[in-house]
C-alpha cells in the first residue's frame, strides 16, 4: 500500500467523525435558515437573514461580540507575549512559576465567576467580562507563545551577533519572523474563543438577559433557542460562523502575505 493511501486511510475515521458531527449538522442548520418553519418547510430565500440582520438585538449582540474581539484579543496577545518573553528569557525563578499561568484553564468556571463577582460590585460596565475573558484565555496563549520562543535555536542568535546584529535587529529579523505563525495562530484561537465567552458571562450575570453592554451573539442564539425560534437560531448561527470564517480567512491571508 502506498504511503499516501495509508495516510488517507488513517484520516478516514476523523473525516467521517467531522462529517457526521459537524458538516452534516451544519448543512442542516443552513437548510433551516432558508425555510420558514421546520414543519411547513417553505423556502423563503434570504428573508430570515434580512430579518435577523435588521433585528436590533442581533445588531447589539454583533457589536458587542466584535468589540470584545477588537478590545480584548490585542490586549490578550500583547500580555501573553510579554509574559512569554519573561518566562522564556527572564529571571530563572520566574520561569519556574510558568505552571501558574495554566491554572485558569483548569479551575472550574463557576468558582472563578464566584470570585469575580466578589471583586466587582456592580454591573455598570463590561470590564468584568473583558477581564474574565483575558484571565481565562491567557494561559493557553502563554503556553503556545512560550513554546514558540523556546523553540528558537540559540545558534541562530549567535550567528547573527557574529555578523554584527544588535538586539533590535535580532528581534525584528529573527525572533518576530519565527514566532509570527504562532502569534497568528494564537490570535485566531483567541478570536474563536471570544465567541465562547457565553458560559462565563451567563454565570457571572446569572440570567439570559445581561446588561446591554454584555449581550453577545451567544445570548441571542441561546435565547432564540429557548423561544423555539429555530429559524432565527439557525440564521444567527450561520451568520456567526460566517463571521468567524471570514476572520480566519483574513488572518490566514495576512499570515501568507507576511511570509511572502
Amino acid at each position, binding site marked *: 500500500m502506498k504511503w499516501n493511501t495509508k495516510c488517507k486511510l488513517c484520516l478516514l475515521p476523523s473525516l467521517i467523525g467531522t462529517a457526521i458531527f459537524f458538516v452534516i449538522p451544519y448543512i442542516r442548520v443552513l437548510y433551516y435558515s432558508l425555510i420558514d418553519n421546520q414543519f411547513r418547510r417553505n423556502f423563503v430565500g434570504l428573508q430570515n437573514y434580512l430579518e435577523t440582520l435588521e433585528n436590533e438585538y*442581533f445588531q447589539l449582540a454583533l457589536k458587542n461580540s466584535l468589540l470584545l474581539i477588537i478590545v480584548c484579543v490585542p490586549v490578550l496577545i500583547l500580555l501573553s507575549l510579554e509574559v512569554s518573553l519573561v518566562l522564556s528569557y527572564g529571571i530563572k525563578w520566574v520561569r519556574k512559576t510558568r505552571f501558574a499561568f495554566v491554572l485558569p484553564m483548569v479551575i472550574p468556571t463557576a468558582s472563578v465567576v464566584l470570585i469575580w463577582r466578589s471583586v466587582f460590585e456592580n454591573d455598570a460596565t463590561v470590564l468584568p467580562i473583558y477581564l474574565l475573558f483575558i484571565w481565562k484565555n491567557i494561559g493557553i496563549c502563554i503556553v503556545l507563545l512560550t513554546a514558540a520562543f523556546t523553540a528558537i535555536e540559540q545558534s541562530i542568535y549567535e550567528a547573527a551577533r557574529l555578523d554584527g546584529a544588535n538586539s533590535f535587529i535580532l528581534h525584528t529579523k529573527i525572533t518576530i519572523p519565527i514566532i509570527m505563525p504562532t502569534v497568528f495562530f494564537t490570535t485566531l484561537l483567541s478570536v474563536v474563543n471570544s465567541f465562547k465567552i457565553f458560559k462565563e458571562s451567563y454565570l457571572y450575570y446569572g*440570567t439570559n*438577559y445581561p446588561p446591554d453592554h454584555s449581550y453577545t451573539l451567544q445570548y441571542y442564539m441561546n*435565547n*432564540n433557542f429557548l423561544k*423555539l425560534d429555530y429559524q432565527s437560531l439557525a440564521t444567527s448561527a450561520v451568520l456567526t460562523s460566517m463571521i468567524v470564517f471570514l476572520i480566519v480567512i483574513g488572518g490566514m491571508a495576512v499570515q501568507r502575505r507576511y511570509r511572502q
Partner: protein
Amino acid sequence: MKKVLVLFLVTVLIFSACSVKTDNVESNSAQFSAYLFYEVEYGDVKAFCGDDKGGLYVVASPFGEPCSLIYFDENGAEISSNELTYSTVNDMLFYDNRLYIAYSGYKVDYGTGSFVDVFDMETGEGSQCCYFQNLSTVKSIAMIDGEIVAAGTDTKKTGMKCTYLWNGREEVTYQGTAIYMQSGKEIETSFPMEMCTLENGLLIYGCDNENGYYFRKYEKGELSEPVYTEQLGKIKGLAGFGDNSFVTQSVNRSGYETLLAGNADTGSAAEIFTNVFVTGEYPEIKTKGDLCWFINNVSGKIERISLPAYYKGNQTIRMLCSFHSDGTPFTCGYNIETEKYGNEELALKILSQDRDYDICYVNSRAGAAGNIRDKGSFYPLNDTKGVEEYLDKLFPYLKDACITENGEIWCIPVNIDGQVHFYNEENIVKTGFDLQNMTMEQYFDYIGYMKAEGLSDKACRDSWTFSEMVLLKYIAEYDSFDTPVFSETAQLIKSRFNCMNADGTIDTTEFVDLSSKLQQEFLKGDVSGIYSEMHMLRISGRFYYLWNENMRAAPMPYYENGGKNLVNVIFIAVNPSSDNLSASLDYISSLADYIGSQTDTFMLSDKEMYSDTKCADDLYEIFENGIIGYAFPDEIYRTDYMSYLAGEMSLDEFIAEADRKLSAYKGE
C-alpha cells in the same frame, strides 16, 4: 316462593301484549353512540342487564312501590313494564336466553342467605337456580361454564379485614368478601371486591394486604397470578368484554365519576366517559358483547354505549408538558402517558421534533407557553374532524389563540381557569363591600378585612400566589412596567401582602384549597368569601362551584376601565413527527367533541351550556371577558420582583431592569 315464580311467569308471558312507550328514547351524536333508556330516580333502580340483541332489562322500585321489571328493546323503546313481587333485587344476568335474578333474604326452607332464580325467556318458566348459604348479601353474579358464581359478604368471614394504604394515603378496608360457585366451591382469593365474566372465564378485582389492588382471572378451574395495579384504587362496578378487557368506574382526584376501560393483563385503564354514577345502592355497569350500560349522572338515565367507539384498546398517547402543568385532559379511551420537563428540555424536545412524543400539553402560565404558541411547530388541525366546529363554539379570544397568523389551527384549548373571588352574597352584603365593582385598593382592603376577621386561613391563597397573580394580570394587559398603575399596585402589594419573609423565604402559609369541606362551610354560611383561582379542575368537576345559591363569583378588579380578566388556558397541540399521528389526531377529534358537549366549561360561548345559577352567570361573564396571560420566563421580571419585595431592589430599579429584559425578550 312458588307464588313469586308463577307471578313472574305470568309477567313474562304478557310482555308482548304490553304497550310500547318511546318517551325515553333519545340519541346523542353518532360519535358517542349513546342511547338513553331509563330515567332514574334516586334509589329506584335495583338491577339491570342487557340481552344479546342490545335490549335492556331493568328491575326498578320507585319509592314506596313494588318492584317492576321493565324491558327496553335495542332501540331504547320501552316494550313492557310489569310488576314483580320481589322486595329487592341485588343483581341480574342475561345468559343463553335466560334471565337470572339474585337477591338476599330469608326463606323458611333455607334460612338466611342469597338466592338466584332463573327464568326461561322463551317458555316463561321460572325456578330457583341456586342458593348461597354463606353469602348474607350478594353483590354480583356471573356465569362461567354454565355455572352461576356469586360474590358477596361471607358470614363465615365476619371480622376479616383488608387494610391497604393506596398510594400511601387512603386506607381501604374490605370485610369478609368472598366468591362462591353454584356447586358450593369457593374461589379463594383475598378480599374480592368486584367480579365479571370474560369470554373464557371470570375476572376478579380484589385487594390484598401486602401488594394492594389486583386483577385475577379464573379460567378452567384455575386462578391466574394476580396482576397488581395502583391506577384504579377503589372501583365501583366491573363488567368484562372480550377475553381480557373490563369496564369499571372510579372517582378520580378531581372528584368526578369516570367510566374507565382497560386491560386486565396489564391492569391499566383509560377514561372513556364522565359522570357515570355508581353507588352501592345502584346497580353497576353491565356489558354484553361490545355494548355497555351504565347510569349517566347528568342525564339521570341508563345509557348504552358501543365500547369500540370509546375504548381505544389502551393505545398510548405520549404527552409532553412542563413541570408547571398539572393533571391530564380527559383521555377519551386512550392511555395518556405524561412526561414532564423543564422549560429548556421541553423546548429541545419540541424543536427536535422527537418522534417519541405525540402531543404537547401547554399551560399558558408556564414559562415556555408563549414561545410554544409563537414558534413551536405543530401539526395543523384544520382538517382534523370536529376541531373547527369545536373552535367555533368557543369564546372568540380562545379561538383566536388557537389560530396562527397564516390561518393554521395549532392547538385546541382543553381547560381554563382564572382569578376568581367566590363569596357568599348574603354575608358580604353585610360587610358593605361591593365585590363586583372594586378598585384594586378597595380589593386589597377587602382581603385585609377578611384576614382581620379571622378568616385568614380561608380568605385568600398565599400572599405569593396572590401577588404573582396581580402581576401576571398586569403584564397580560400592559407592555411596560413603567406606568403609574403598576407603581401604585406594586407598592400596595409590598406594604400589605408582601410574600417575602424576613429570612428570604416565600410566605405560602395561607394557601387553602377550595375543597368540598369548604363548600360545606359555604353552604352553612360560615365563610364569607374566598379568594381563589378557579383551579385546573376537570371540566365536569366544576359543578360544585355552582351548588350554593348564595355563591357568587367576582373578577379581580380592573386596572382601568375596560380591563380584561386574566385567564390561564391549557392547550393541546400535536407533534407532526409523531409516529402515532393517526391516534393522536383521533384523540384530538374525540376530545374536541367531548369538551364541546360538556356543560359549565366556561370556554363555550353558548349560554345554554351553563347551569342556571348566579355563580354560573358570574363565571360566564368573567371568562367571556378574558385575556390569556402567557407567562414570561421567571428571569424577565419575577426574580427581580421578589428582590423588590424583599427590599433588595428599589421600585425604580425593578421597573428599569424588568422593562429592559422585557424589551429584549420581545425584541430579540
